[in-house]
Protein backbone atom coordinates (compact mmCIF):
# COMPACT_ATOMS: atom_id res chain seq x y z
CA UNK A 1 0.00 0.00 0.00
CA UNK A 2 1.29 3.47 -0.81
CA UNK A 3 1.89 6.04 1.92
CA UNK A 4 -1.07 7.97 0.57
CA UNK A 5 -3.38 5.00 1.11
CA UNK A 6 -1.82 4.27 4.49
CA UNK A 7 -2.31 7.78 5.78
CA UNK A 8 -5.87 8.08 4.51
CA UNK A 9 -6.75 4.65 5.84
CA UNK A 10 -5.35 5.48 9.26
CA UNK A 11 -7.41 8.67 9.39
CA UNK A 12 -10.58 6.95 8.19
CA UNK A 13 -10.18 4.37 10.92
CA UNK A 14 -10.43 6.97 13.68
CA UNK A 15 -13.79 7.41 15.36
CA UNK A 16 -14.65 11.09 15.18
CA UNK A 17 -17.71 13.13 15.93
CA UNK A 18 -19.26 14.90 12.97
CA UNK A 19 -18.73 18.64 13.16
CA UNK A 20 -20.24 21.50 11.20
CA UNK A 21 -18.39 24.36 9.58
CA UNK A 22 -19.35 27.71 11.09
CA UNK A 23 -20.73 30.45 8.88
CA UNK A 24 -18.48 33.47 8.99
CA UNK A 25 -20.02 36.77 10.08
CA UNK A 26 -19.23 39.83 7.97
CA UNK A 27 -17.11 41.71 10.53
CA UNK A 28 -16.63 45.35 9.52
CA UNK A 29 -14.65 48.32 10.81
CA UNK A 30 -15.77 51.54 12.36
CA UNK A 31 -14.34 54.75 10.97
CA UNK A 32 -13.08 56.19 7.73
CA UNK A 33 -11.48 53.51 5.54
CA UNK A 34 -8.94 55.87 3.95
CA UNK A 35 -7.78 57.04 7.37
CA UNK A 36 -7.58 53.54 8.75
CA UNK A 37 -5.73 52.27 5.70
CA UNK A 38 -3.14 55.06 5.88
CA UNK A 39 -2.54 54.40 9.56
CA UNK A 40 -2.19 50.67 8.94
CA UNK A 41 0.41 51.13 6.18
CA UNK A 42 2.37 53.52 8.39
CA UNK A 43 2.32 51.04 11.24
CA UNK A 44 3.76 48.45 8.83
CA UNK A 45 6.61 50.90 8.06
CA UNK A 46 5.26 51.93 4.66
CA UNK A 47 4.26 55.40 3.46
CA UNK A 48 1.14 56.69 1.78
CA UNK A 49 1.25 59.68 -0.56
CA UNK A 50 -0.71 61.56 -3.20
CA UNK A 51 0.20 61.82 -6.86
CA UNK A 52 2.05 65.10 -6.55
CA UNK A 53 4.14 64.06 -3.61
CA UNK A 54 5.02 60.89 -5.45
CA UNK A 55 6.11 62.79 -8.57
CA UNK A 56 8.31 65.04 -6.47
CA UNK A 57 9.86 62.06 -4.72
CA UNK A 58 10.64 60.19 -7.96
CA UNK A 59 12.24 63.22 -9.59
CA UNK A 60 14.35 63.85 -6.50
CA UNK A 61 15.69 60.31 -6.49
CA UNK A 62 17.43 60.13 -9.80
CA UNK A 63 16.69 56.42 -10.33
CA UNK A 64 18.20 54.97 -13.48
CA UNK A 65 16.43 51.64 -13.33
CA UNK A 66 12.63 51.73 -13.12
CA UNK A 67 9.88 49.41 -14.29
CA UNK A 68 6.43 50.89 -14.20
CA UNK A 69 3.37 48.78 -14.84
CA UNK A 70 0.85 51.32 -13.64
CA UNK A 71 -1.07 53.09 -16.39
CA UNK A 72 -0.74 56.72 -15.15
CA UNK A 73 3.02 56.35 -14.58
CA UNK A 74 3.97 54.19 -17.54
CA UNK A 75 6.32 56.86 -18.91
CA UNK A 76 8.63 56.46 -15.91
CA UNK A 77 9.90 53.07 -17.12
CA UNK A 78 13.55 53.15 -18.06
CA UNK A 79 13.66 49.71 -19.64
CA UNK A 80 11.54 46.85 -20.92
CA UNK A 81 10.66 44.00 -18.64
CA UNK A 82 13.38 41.36 -19.17
CA UNK A 83 12.45 37.81 -20.05
CA UNK A 84 14.55 36.37 -17.22
CA UNK A 85 13.58 37.67 -13.76
CA UNK A 86 17.19 37.29 -12.57
CA UNK A 87 17.94 40.38 -14.64
CA UNK A 88 15.78 42.38 -12.25
CA UNK A 89 18.46 42.08 -9.59
CA UNK A 90 19.57 45.70 -9.81
CA UNK A 91 16.10 47.14 -10.29
CA UNK A 92 15.75 50.27 -8.19
CA UNK A 93 12.06 50.94 -8.46
CA UNK A 94 8.97 48.93 -9.43
CA UNK A 95 5.63 50.70 -9.81
CA UNK A 96 2.70 48.33 -9.75
CA UNK A 97 -1.05 48.81 -9.90
CA UNK A 98 -2.76 47.38 -6.81
CA UNK A 99 -6.18 45.73 -7.07
CA UNK A 100 -7.56 46.71 -3.69
CA UNK A 101 -6.42 47.46 -0.16
CA UNK A 102 -7.57 46.25 3.25
CA UNK A 103 -8.13 49.03 5.77
CA UNK A 104 -7.65 46.94 8.92
CA UNK A 105 -4.06 45.96 8.14
CA UNK A 106 -2.85 47.79 5.04
CA UNK A 107 -2.63 44.63 2.93
CA UNK A 108 -2.85 45.18 -0.83
CA UNK A 109 -3.91 42.40 -3.19
CA UNK A 110 -1.91 41.65 -6.32
CA UNK A 111 -2.05 38.62 -8.58
CA UNK A 112 -0.52 37.31 -11.79
CA UNK A 113 -2.29 39.96 -13.84
CA UNK A 114 -0.33 42.71 -12.04
CA UNK A 115 2.85 40.65 -11.78
CA UNK A 116 4.36 39.56 -15.10
CA UNK A 117 7.22 38.27 -12.94
CA UNK A 118 6.12 37.07 -9.53
CA UNK A 119 9.43 38.14 -8.01
CA UNK A 120 8.99 41.78 -9.05
CA UNK A 121 7.61 43.26 -5.79
CA UNK A 122 10.30 41.41 -3.79
CA UNK A 123 13.45 41.84 -5.82
CA UNK A 124 13.07 45.56 -6.47
CA UNK A 125 14.93 47.90 -4.13
CA UNK A 126 11.91 50.17 -3.73
CA UNK A 127 8.28 49.32 -4.34
CA UNK A 128 5.45 51.67 -5.22
CA UNK A 129 1.86 50.47 -5.43
CA UNK A 130 -0.74 52.70 -7.02
CA UNK A 131 -4.18 52.27 -5.54
CA UNK A 132 -7.55 53.93 -5.99
CA UNK A 133 -9.29 55.22 -2.87
CA UNK A 134 -12.41 53.57 -4.24
CA UNK A 135 -10.77 50.20 -3.88
CA UNK A 136 -10.58 49.81 -0.13
CA UNK A 137 -12.38 47.16 1.89
CA UNK A 138 -12.80 46.92 5.67
CA UNK A 139 -11.24 43.65 6.77
CA UNK A 140 -9.81 40.43 5.35
CA UNK A 141 -13.33 38.98 5.38
CA UNK A 142 -14.46 41.46 2.75
CA UNK A 143 -11.13 40.99 1.00
CA UNK A 144 -11.68 37.27 0.46
CA UNK A 145 -15.29 37.96 -0.44
CA UNK A 146 -13.98 40.24 -3.16
CA UNK A 147 -11.34 37.76 -4.35
CA UNK A 148 -14.20 35.25 -4.53
CA UNK A 149 -13.57 32.54 -7.09
CA UNK A 150 -10.83 34.47 -8.84
CA UNK A 151 -8.41 32.02 -10.40
CA UNK A 152 -4.82 33.19 -10.50
CA UNK A 153 -1.71 31.05 -10.28
CA UNK A 154 -0.27 33.41 -7.67
CA UNK A 155 -1.84 35.95 -5.35
CA UNK A 156 -0.17 38.21 -2.81
CA UNK A 157 -1.21 40.39 0.07
CA UNK A 158 1.64 42.80 0.53
CA UNK A 159 1.35 45.08 3.55
CA UNK A 160 4.74 46.76 3.93
CA UNK A 161 8.43 46.65 3.07
CA UNK A 162 10.61 43.63 3.80
CA UNK A 163 11.48 43.67 7.50
CA UNK A 164 13.02 41.63 10.27
CA UNK A 165 13.55 41.81 14.00
CA UNK A 166 15.74 38.75 14.25
CA UNK A 167 18.68 40.59 15.80
CA UNK A 168 17.75 41.29 19.41
CA UNK A 169 14.22 42.23 18.39
CA UNK A 170 15.36 45.53 16.82
CA UNK A 171 13.23 46.29 13.81
CA UNK A 172 15.23 46.60 10.59
CA UNK A 173 13.49 47.50 7.34
CA UNK A 174 14.91 45.96 4.16
CA UNK A 175 15.78 42.35 4.91
CA UNK A 176 15.75 40.52 1.56
CA UNK A 177 13.00 42.21 -0.38
CA UNK A 178 12.00 45.80 -1.07
CA UNK A 179 13.59 48.31 1.29
CA UNK A 180 10.59 50.61 1.12
CA UNK A 181 6.90 50.55 0.24
CA UNK A 182 5.08 53.66 -0.94
CA UNK A 183 1.39 53.57 -1.71
CA UNK A 184 0.13 56.25 -4.07
CA UNK A 185 -3.51 56.69 -3.17
CA UNK A 186 -5.48 58.33 -5.96
Amino acid at each position, binding site marked *: MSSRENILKAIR*GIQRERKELPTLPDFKLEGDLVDLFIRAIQANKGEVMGEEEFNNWVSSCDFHSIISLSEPFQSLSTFELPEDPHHLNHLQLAIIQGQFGVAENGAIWLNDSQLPHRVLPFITEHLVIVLSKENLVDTLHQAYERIGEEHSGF*GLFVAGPSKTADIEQSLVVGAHGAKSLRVVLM
Partner: protein
Amino acid sequence: MSHPKAASQFLKDHANSLWHDETLWMVREKRDAISKTIPEWEELRNLASQIKDKVLSNLDVYLENFEANAQKNGIKVHWAKDAAEHNQIVLGILREKNCQAIVKSKSILTEECHLNPYLEKNGVEVVDTDLGERIVQFLQQPPSHIVMPAIHLKKRDISALFHEKLQTEKGNEDPSYLTNAARLHLRKKFLGSKVAITGVNFGVAETGEFVVCTNEGNADMGVHLADVHIACMGIEKIIPRRKDLGVFLRLLARSATGQPITNYNSHFRSPAKGKEIHLVLVDNGRSLQLAREKFRNSLKCIRCGACMNTCPIYRRSGGYSYGSTVPGPIGSILSPGLDMKKYSTLPFASTLCGSCSDVCPVKINIHEQLYEWRQEITKHHGEFGKGLSMKLASGIFKSPLAYKISGSTMRKAIKLLPKGLIYNPLNVWGKNRDLPEAPKESFQEWYKKNRG
Protein backbone atom coordinates in the same frame (compact mmCIF):
# COMPACT_ATOMS: atom_id res chain seq x y z
CA MET B 1 19.04 15.94 28.49
CA SER B 2 15.94 16.36 30.62
CA HIS B 3 14.18 19.71 30.66
CA PRO B 4 15.17 20.66 34.22
CA LYS B 5 18.86 19.97 33.56
CA ALA B 6 18.89 22.00 30.37
CA ALA B 7 16.85 24.78 31.98
CA SER B 8 19.27 25.18 34.84
CA GLN B 9 22.12 25.55 32.34
CA PHE B 10 20.25 28.33 30.58
CA LEU B 11 19.60 30.05 33.88
CA LYS B 12 23.31 30.19 34.70
CA ASP B 13 23.72 33.25 32.50
CA HIS B 14 21.47 35.36 34.62
CA ALA B 15 21.60 38.59 32.58
CA ASN B 16 20.81 36.74 29.39
CA SER B 17 17.96 34.73 30.83
CA LEU B 18 16.46 37.88 32.33
CA TRP B 19 16.66 39.60 28.94
CA HIS B 20 15.03 36.56 27.30
CA ASP B 21 12.24 36.59 29.86
CA GLU B 22 11.54 40.30 29.49
CA THR B 23 11.78 40.36 25.71
CA LEU B 24 9.27 37.57 25.25
CA TRP B 25 6.97 39.16 27.76
CA MET B 26 7.14 42.34 25.67
CA VAL B 27 6.05 40.38 22.60
CA ARG B 28 3.21 38.93 24.64
CA GLU B 29 2.15 42.44 25.64
CA LYS B 30 2.15 43.55 22.01
CA ARG B 31 -0.13 40.66 21.24
CA ASP B 32 -2.46 41.70 24.05
CA ALA B 33 -2.55 45.30 22.91
CA ILE B 34 -3.43 44.52 19.31
CA SER B 35 -5.98 41.86 20.17
CA LYS B 36 -7.86 44.45 22.21
CA THR B 37 -8.28 46.62 19.12
CA ILE B 38 -10.43 43.90 17.51
CA PRO B 39 -13.88 43.81 19.14
CA GLU B 40 -14.60 40.39 17.66
CA TRP B 41 -11.29 38.87 18.84
CA GLU B 42 -12.87 36.19 21.02
CA GLU B 43 -15.37 35.38 18.30
CA LEU B 44 -12.53 34.95 15.82
CA ARG B 45 -10.78 32.53 18.17
CA ASN B 46 -13.99 30.54 18.48
CA LEU B 47 -14.47 30.47 14.73
CA ALA B 48 -10.88 29.39 14.16
CA SER B 49 -11.29 26.62 16.69
CA GLN B 50 -14.57 25.45 15.14
CA ILE B 51 -13.12 25.47 11.63
CA LYS B 52 -10.23 23.34 12.86
CA ASP B 53 -12.67 21.01 14.64
CA LYS B 54 -14.34 20.44 11.33
CA VAL B 55 -10.99 19.90 9.61
CA LEU B 56 -9.96 17.26 12.12
CA SER B 57 -13.32 15.50 11.94
CA ASN B 58 -13.14 15.33 8.16
CA LEU B 59 -9.42 15.35 7.47
CA ASP B 60 -9.36 12.42 5.04
CA VAL B 61 -11.94 14.01 2.75
CA TYR B 62 -10.31 17.44 2.86
CA LEU B 63 -6.93 15.94 2.06
CA GLU B 64 -8.37 14.17 -0.96
CA ASN B 65 -10.08 17.35 -2.15
CA PHE B 66 -6.95 19.37 -1.58
CA GLU B 67 -4.86 16.90 -3.53
CA ALA B 68 -7.30 16.70 -6.45
CA ASN B 69 -7.56 20.49 -6.73
CA ALA B 70 -3.83 21.02 -6.40
CA GLN B 71 -3.22 18.46 -9.14
CA LYS B 72 -5.77 20.18 -11.36
CA ASN B 73 -3.72 23.34 -10.91
CA GLY B 74 -0.56 21.61 -12.06
CA ILE B 75 0.99 21.01 -8.63
CA LYS B 76 2.72 17.66 -8.09
CA VAL B 77 1.55 16.13 -4.81
CA HIS B 78 3.61 13.62 -2.79
CA TRP B 79 2.71 11.81 0.44
CA ALA B 80 5.16 10.95 3.20
CA LYS B 81 4.24 8.71 6.13
CA ASP B 82 7.23 9.84 8.19
CA ALA B 83 10.28 12.07 8.29
CA ALA B 84 12.48 9.56 6.48
CA GLU B 85 10.11 9.30 3.54
CA HIS B 86 9.72 13.09 3.43
CA ASN B 87 13.47 13.51 3.22
CA GLN B 88 13.78 10.85 0.51
CA ILE B 89 11.09 12.53 -1.57
CA VAL B 90 12.84 15.89 -1.35
CA LEU B 91 16.23 14.37 -2.20
CA GLY B 92 14.64 12.48 -5.10
CA ILE B 93 13.36 15.72 -6.62
CA LEU B 94 16.76 17.38 -6.16
CA ARG B 95 18.54 14.43 -7.81
CA GLU B 96 16.11 14.48 -10.72
CA LYS B 97 16.84 18.20 -11.19
CA ASN B 98 20.55 17.67 -10.75
CA CYS B 99 20.55 20.20 -7.98
CA GLN B 100 23.33 20.47 -5.41
CA ALA B 101 22.45 23.70 -3.61
CA ILE B 102 19.08 24.91 -2.37
CA VAL B 103 17.59 27.84 -0.47
CA LYS B 104 15.02 27.16 2.21
CA SER B 105 12.67 29.50 4.03
CA LYS B 106 11.37 28.91 7.52
CA SER B 107 9.73 25.53 7.88
CA ILE B 108 9.27 23.93 11.27
CA LEU B 109 8.25 20.72 9.53
CA THR B 110 11.61 20.35 7.78
CA GLU B 111 13.28 20.92 11.16
CA GLU B 112 11.07 18.22 12.63
CA CYS B 113 12.17 15.88 9.82
CA HIS B 114 15.85 16.87 10.19
CA LEU B 115 15.97 17.57 6.49
CA ASN B 116 19.11 19.74 6.56
CA PRO B 117 21.53 17.15 7.94
CA TYR B 118 20.02 14.52 5.65
CA LEU B 119 20.52 16.63 2.54
CA GLU B 120 23.99 17.72 3.62
CA LYS B 121 24.98 14.10 4.15
CA ASN B 122 23.88 13.53 0.59
CA GLY B 123 26.01 16.31 -0.80
CA VAL B 124 23.41 19.09 -1.02
CA GLU B 125 24.22 22.55 0.34
CA VAL B 126 21.23 23.94 2.25
CA VAL B 127 20.97 27.66 2.95
CA ASP B 128 18.32 28.78 5.42
CA THR B 129 17.24 32.23 4.31
CA ASP B 130 15.21 33.61 7.18
CA LEU B 131 17.69 35.88 8.93
CA GLY B 132 17.22 34.28 12.35
CA GLU B 133 17.48 30.81 10.85
CA ARG B 134 20.61 31.70 8.92
CA ILE B 135 22.17 32.92 12.16
CA VAL B 136 21.46 29.69 14.02
CA GLN B 137 22.46 27.65 10.99
CA PHE B 138 25.88 29.35 10.98
CA LEU B 139 26.17 28.29 14.63
CA GLN B 140 24.97 24.77 13.78
CA GLN B 141 22.12 25.18 16.22
CA PRO B 142 18.41 24.53 15.72
CA PRO B 143 15.95 27.46 16.13
CA SER B 144 15.13 28.14 19.79
CA HIS B 145 11.68 29.60 19.04
CA ILE B 146 9.33 28.82 16.16
CA VAL B 147 8.74 32.45 15.18
CA MET B 148 11.96 34.08 16.47
CA PRO B 149 14.62 31.43 15.81
CA ALA B 150 17.57 33.42 17.24
CA ILE B 151 15.83 34.97 20.23
CA HIS B 152 18.36 33.39 22.60
CA LEU B 153 21.27 35.31 21.05
CA LYS B 154 22.50 38.84 21.69
CA LYS B 155 23.72 41.23 19.02
CA ARG B 156 27.30 40.92 20.22
CA ASP B 157 27.11 37.18 19.49
CA ILE B 158 25.71 37.84 16.04
CA SER B 159 28.26 40.55 15.35
CA ALA B 160 31.11 38.18 16.20
CA LEU B 161 29.53 35.43 14.11
CA PHE B 162 29.07 37.66 11.06
CA HIS B 163 32.59 38.96 11.42
CA GLU B 164 33.77 35.40 11.10
CA LYS B 165 31.35 34.20 8.41
CA LEU B 166 30.54 37.30 6.40
CA GLN B 167 33.63 39.43 7.10
CA THR B 168 31.70 42.28 8.69
CA GLU B 169 33.64 44.86 10.71
CA LYS B 170 34.84 43.56 14.03
CA GLY B 171 32.74 44.90 16.89
CA ASN B 172 30.05 46.49 14.70
CA GLU B 173 26.85 45.46 16.45
CA ASP B 174 24.42 47.71 14.59
CA PRO B 175 21.40 45.53 13.64
CA SER B 176 20.87 47.44 10.35
CA TYR B 177 24.48 46.96 9.36
CA LEU B 178 24.40 43.25 10.21
CA THR B 179 21.06 42.72 8.46
CA ASN B 180 22.39 44.39 5.33
CA ALA B 181 25.43 42.11 5.33
CA ALA B 182 23.07 39.13 5.45
CA ARG B 183 20.98 40.66 2.67
CA LEU B 184 23.98 40.85 0.34
CA HIS B 185 25.14 37.36 1.25
CA LEU B 186 21.70 35.79 0.77
CA ARG B 187 20.93 37.72 -2.43
CA LYS B 188 23.66 35.71 -4.14
CA LYS B 189 22.16 32.49 -2.86
CA PHE B 190 18.67 33.42 -4.09
CA LEU B 191 19.98 34.28 -7.53
CA GLY B 192 21.93 31.04 -7.79
CA SER B 193 19.41 28.43 -6.61
CA LYS B 194 17.46 26.23 -8.98
CA VAL B 195 15.30 24.75 -6.23
CA ALA B 196 13.69 26.51 -3.26
CA ILE B 197 11.98 24.88 -0.31
CA THR B 198 9.29 26.49 1.84
CA GLY B 199 6.91 25.44 4.55
CA VAL B 200 3.16 25.98 4.33
CA ASN B 201 1.00 28.01 6.71
CA PHE B 202 -2.37 26.99 5.25
CA GLY B 203 -3.54 24.65 2.49
CA VAL B 204 -7.01 25.37 1.13
CA ALA B 205 -8.98 22.23 0.27
CA GLU B 206 -11.54 24.04 -1.89
CA THR B 207 -8.99 25.58 -4.26
CA GLY B 208 -5.85 23.46 -3.90
CA GLU B 209 -3.81 26.60 -3.17
CA PHE B 210 -1.46 27.07 -0.25
CA VAL B 211 -0.37 30.16 1.65
CA VAL B 212 3.07 31.10 2.97
CA CYS B 213 3.52 34.11 5.29
CA THR B 214 6.79 35.97 5.94
CA ASN B 215 7.92 39.44 6.93
CA GLU B 216 11.29 39.28 5.24
CA GLY B 217 10.07 38.15 1.82
CA ASN B 218 12.66 35.38 1.81
CA ALA B 219 10.26 32.60 0.81
CA ASP B 220 9.22 34.53 -2.27
CA MET B 221 12.74 35.61 -3.21
CA GLY B 222 13.68 31.94 -3.23
CA VAL B 223 10.77 30.35 -5.03
CA HIS B 224 10.18 32.94 -7.73
CA LEU B 225 13.81 32.90 -8.82
CA ALA B 226 14.09 29.10 -8.73
CA ASP B 227 12.76 26.69 -11.36
CA VAL B 228 11.32 24.32 -8.79
CA HIS B 229 9.43 25.09 -5.59
CA ILE B 230 9.11 22.29 -3.04
CA ALA B 231 6.54 23.04 -0.34
CA CYS B 232 6.51 20.79 2.73
CA MET B 233 3.23 20.64 4.61
CA GLY B 234 1.95 18.75 7.63
CA ILE B 235 -1.40 17.11 6.89
CA GLU B 236 -3.07 19.15 9.64
CA LYS B 237 -2.41 22.45 7.87
CA ILE B 238 -5.57 22.06 5.76
CA ILE B 239 -8.43 24.54 5.95
CA PRO B 240 -11.67 23.98 4.09
CA ARG B 241 -12.48 27.24 2.32
CA ARG B 242 -10.61 30.18 0.89
CA LYS B 243 -12.65 32.56 3.00
CA ASP B 244 -11.44 30.77 6.14
CA LEU B 245 -8.10 32.45 5.45
CA GLY B 246 -9.78 35.68 6.53
CA VAL B 247 -10.17 34.27 10.04
CA PHE B 248 -6.71 32.70 10.29
CA LEU B 249 -4.70 35.54 8.78
CA ARG B 250 -6.42 38.00 11.09
CA LEU B 251 -5.32 35.90 14.06
CA LEU B 252 -1.88 34.63 13.07
CA ALA B 253 0.41 37.69 13.00
CA ARG B 254 -1.46 39.46 15.77
CA SER B 255 -0.94 36.46 18.02
CA ALA B 256 2.64 35.90 16.91
CA THR B 257 4.24 39.34 17.09
CA GLY B 258 1.44 41.82 17.68
CA GLN B 259 1.44 43.10 14.09
CA PRO B 260 -1.83 43.23 12.10
CA ILE B 261 -0.57 40.94 9.32
CA THR B 262 2.75 39.65 8.02
CA ASN B 263 4.06 41.92 5.27
CA TYR B 264 4.00 39.16 2.65
CA ASN B 265 1.20 36.61 2.37
CA SER B 266 1.67 34.56 -0.77
CA HIS B 267 -1.03 32.34 -2.26
CA PHE B 268 0.40 29.64 -4.52
CA ARG B 269 -2.12 28.01 -6.81
CA SER B 270 -0.21 26.92 -9.88
CA PRO B 271 3.37 27.14 -11.07
CA ALA B 272 4.49 30.05 -13.26
CA LYS B 273 5.10 29.19 -16.90
CA GLY B 274 7.94 26.74 -17.32
CA LYS B 275 8.27 26.10 -13.57
CA GLU B 276 7.25 23.35 -11.16
CA ILE B 277 5.64 23.20 -7.75
CA HIS B 278 5.92 20.03 -5.66
CA LEU B 279 3.92 19.66 -2.49
CA VAL B 280 4.89 17.05 0.09
CA LEU B 281 2.11 16.09 2.52
CA VAL B 282 3.62 14.71 5.70
CA ASP B 283 2.04 12.59 8.43
CA ASN B 284 4.97 11.83 10.77
CA GLY B 285 2.88 10.99 13.81
CA ARG B 286 -0.05 13.31 13.08
CA SER B 287 -2.58 10.58 12.34
CA LEU B 288 -1.52 8.90 15.59
CA GLN B 289 -2.10 12.12 17.50
CA LEU B 290 -5.48 12.45 15.78
CA ALA B 291 -6.41 9.06 17.14
CA ARG B 292 -5.63 10.15 20.72
CA GLU B 293 -8.87 11.81 21.60
CA LYS B 294 -7.51 13.75 24.57
CA PHE B 295 -4.66 15.20 22.53
CA ARG B 296 -6.40 15.59 19.17
CA ASN B 297 -6.87 19.34 19.57
CA SER B 298 -3.13 19.89 19.60
CA LEU B 299 -3.32 19.45 15.82
CA LYS B 300 -5.19 22.74 15.53
CA CYS B 301 -1.95 24.62 16.16
CA ILE B 302 -1.09 27.33 13.61
CA ARG B 303 2.45 27.78 15.03
CA CYS B 304 2.08 31.39 16.12
CA GLY B 305 4.35 30.99 19.14
CA ALA B 306 2.08 32.96 21.50
CA CYS B 307 1.99 30.15 24.06
CA MET B 308 5.78 30.27 24.25
CA ASN B 309 5.95 34.03 24.69
CA THR B 310 3.52 33.91 27.57
CA CYS B 311 4.81 30.78 29.30
CA PRO B 312 6.70 31.57 32.54
CA ILE B 313 8.74 28.41 32.15
CA TYR B 314 9.61 28.93 28.48
CA ARG B 315 10.58 32.53 29.08
CA ARG B 316 12.82 31.54 31.97
CA SER B 317 14.31 28.37 30.58
CA GLY B 318 14.78 29.07 26.86
CA GLY B 319 13.78 27.05 23.82
CA TYR B 320 16.69 24.63 23.92
CA SER B 321 15.79 23.32 27.34
CA TYR B 322 12.91 21.41 25.72
CA GLY B 323 15.16 19.48 23.33
CA SER B 324 12.31 19.16 20.84
CA THR B 325 11.73 20.88 17.49
CA VAL B 326 8.66 22.68 18.76
CA PRO B 327 9.44 23.95 22.27
CA GLY B 328 7.20 25.59 24.84
CA PRO B 329 3.72 24.55 25.94
CA ILE B 330 2.53 23.29 22.55
CA GLY B 331 5.79 21.42 22.03
CA SER B 332 5.27 19.78 25.39
CA ILE B 333 1.99 18.26 24.25
CA LEU B 334 3.08 17.42 20.69
CA SER B 335 6.47 15.87 21.45
CA PRO B 336 5.37 13.15 23.91
CA GLY B 337 3.07 11.96 21.14
CA LEU B 338 6.14 11.33 19.01
CA ASP B 339 8.26 9.74 21.74
CA MET B 340 6.79 9.54 25.22
CA LYS B 341 9.97 8.31 26.86
CA LYS B 342 12.34 10.83 25.30
CA TYR B 343 10.05 13.76 26.08
CA SER B 344 8.72 12.51 29.40
CA THR B 345 9.85 15.55 31.39
CA LEU B 346 8.23 18.13 29.09
CA PRO B 347 4.64 17.98 30.36
CA PHE B 348 6.08 18.75 33.78
CA ALA B 349 7.76 21.90 32.47
CA SER B 350 4.71 23.93 33.29
CA THR B 351 3.05 25.59 36.23
CA LEU B 352 -0.34 24.73 34.67
CA CYS B 353 -1.24 28.38 35.02
CA GLY B 354 -3.28 28.21 31.83
CA SER B 355 -1.91 31.36 30.24
CA CYS B 356 -1.01 29.37 27.11
CA SER B 357 -4.62 28.29 26.61
CA ASP B 358 -5.75 31.88 27.14
CA VAL B 359 -3.65 33.33 24.36
CA CYS B 360 -3.94 30.46 21.87
CA PRO B 361 -5.69 31.81 18.76
CA VAL B 362 -7.26 28.43 17.97
CA LYS B 363 -8.22 27.81 21.60
CA ILE B 364 -6.27 24.63 22.23
CA ASN B 365 -6.74 23.54 25.86
CA ILE B 366 -2.96 23.33 26.20
CA HIS B 367 -2.65 23.27 29.98
CA GLU B 368 -5.33 20.59 30.30
CA GLN B 369 -3.48 18.43 27.82
CA LEU B 370 -0.27 18.96 29.78
CA TYR B 371 -2.08 17.63 32.79
CA GLU B 372 -3.39 14.68 30.78
CA TRP B 373 0.13 13.84 29.60
CA ARG B 374 1.33 13.84 33.19
CA GLN B 375 -1.25 11.17 33.92
CA GLU B 376 -0.18 9.12 30.91
CA ILE B 377 3.50 9.43 31.74
CA THR B 378 2.98 8.65 35.39
CA LYS B 379 1.02 5.54 34.36
CA HIS B 380 3.91 4.40 32.19
CA HIS B 381 6.70 5.53 34.46
CA GLY B 382 7.79 2.00 35.25
CA GLU B 383 8.97 1.60 31.68
CA PHE B 384 11.15 4.69 31.86
CA GLY B 385 13.53 3.59 34.55
CA LYS B 386 13.52 4.06 38.25
CA GLY B 387 15.17 7.45 38.67
CA LEU B 388 12.65 9.21 36.56
CA SER B 389 9.64 7.41 37.91
CA MET B 390 10.57 8.33 41.47
CA LYS B 391 10.64 11.97 40.57
CA LEU B 392 7.58 12.07 38.40
CA ALA B 393 5.18 9.79 40.16
CA SER B 394 4.00 12.28 42.68
CA GLY B 395 3.03 15.18 40.50
CA ILE B 396 4.14 18.69 39.80
CA PHE B 397 5.56 19.77 43.14
CA LYS B 398 7.87 16.86 43.25
CA SER B 399 8.83 17.26 39.62
CA PRO B 400 12.47 18.11 39.08
CA LEU B 401 11.69 21.33 37.26
CA ALA B 402 9.63 22.82 39.99
CA TYR B 403 12.48 22.96 42.45
CA LYS B 404 15.20 23.78 39.97
CA ILE B 405 13.58 26.94 38.75
CA SER B 406 13.50 29.22 41.70
CA GLY B 407 12.92 32.57 40.11
CA SER B 408 10.31 35.18 40.79
CA THR B 409 7.74 33.44 38.61
CA MET B 410 7.84 30.35 40.75
CA ARG B 411 7.78 32.43 43.89
CA LYS B 412 4.55 33.86 42.64
CA ALA B 413 3.23 30.43 41.80
CA ILE B 414 3.53 29.19 45.35
CA LYS B 415 0.85 31.63 46.40
CA LEU B 416 -1.42 28.87 45.18
CA LEU B 417 -1.88 25.56 46.85
CA PRO B 418 -0.49 22.61 44.94
CA LYS B 419 -3.95 21.11 44.64
CA GLY B 420 -5.29 24.37 43.34
CA LEU B 421 -2.56 24.50 40.78
CA ILE B 422 -3.14 21.05 39.52
CA TYR B 423 -6.88 20.79 39.50
CA ASN B 424 -7.99 24.34 39.08
CA PRO B 425 -6.62 26.15 36.07
CA LEU B 426 -6.21 29.48 37.82
CA ASN B 427 -4.96 31.97 35.38
CA VAL B 428 -2.06 33.61 37.10
CA TRP B 429 -0.22 35.11 34.11
CA GLY B 430 -3.19 35.52 31.82
CA LYS B 431 -5.95 37.53 33.33
CA ASN B 432 -4.51 38.65 36.60
CA ARG B 433 -0.89 39.60 36.89
CA ASP B 434 -1.37 41.73 40.00
CA LEU B 435 -0.80 39.08 42.56
CA PRO B 436 -0.34 39.81 46.20
CA GLU B 437 3.28 40.36 47.10
CA ALA B 438 5.34 37.26 46.55
CA PRO B 439 7.10 35.68 49.49
CA LYS B 440 10.81 36.37 49.87
CA GLU B 441 11.92 32.77 50.11
CA SER B 442 12.66 30.88 46.94
CA PHE B 443 10.59 27.99 45.85
CA GLN B 444 13.37 25.61 46.64
CA GLU B 445 13.43 26.79 50.22
CA TRP B 446 9.68 26.64 50.47
CA TYR B 447 9.67 23.18 49.00
CA LYS B 448 12.26 21.94 51.49
CA LYS B 449 10.18 23.23 54.35
CA ASN B 450 6.84 22.05 53.13
CA ARG B 451 7.27 18.73 51.39
CA GLY B 452 6.08 15.57 52.91
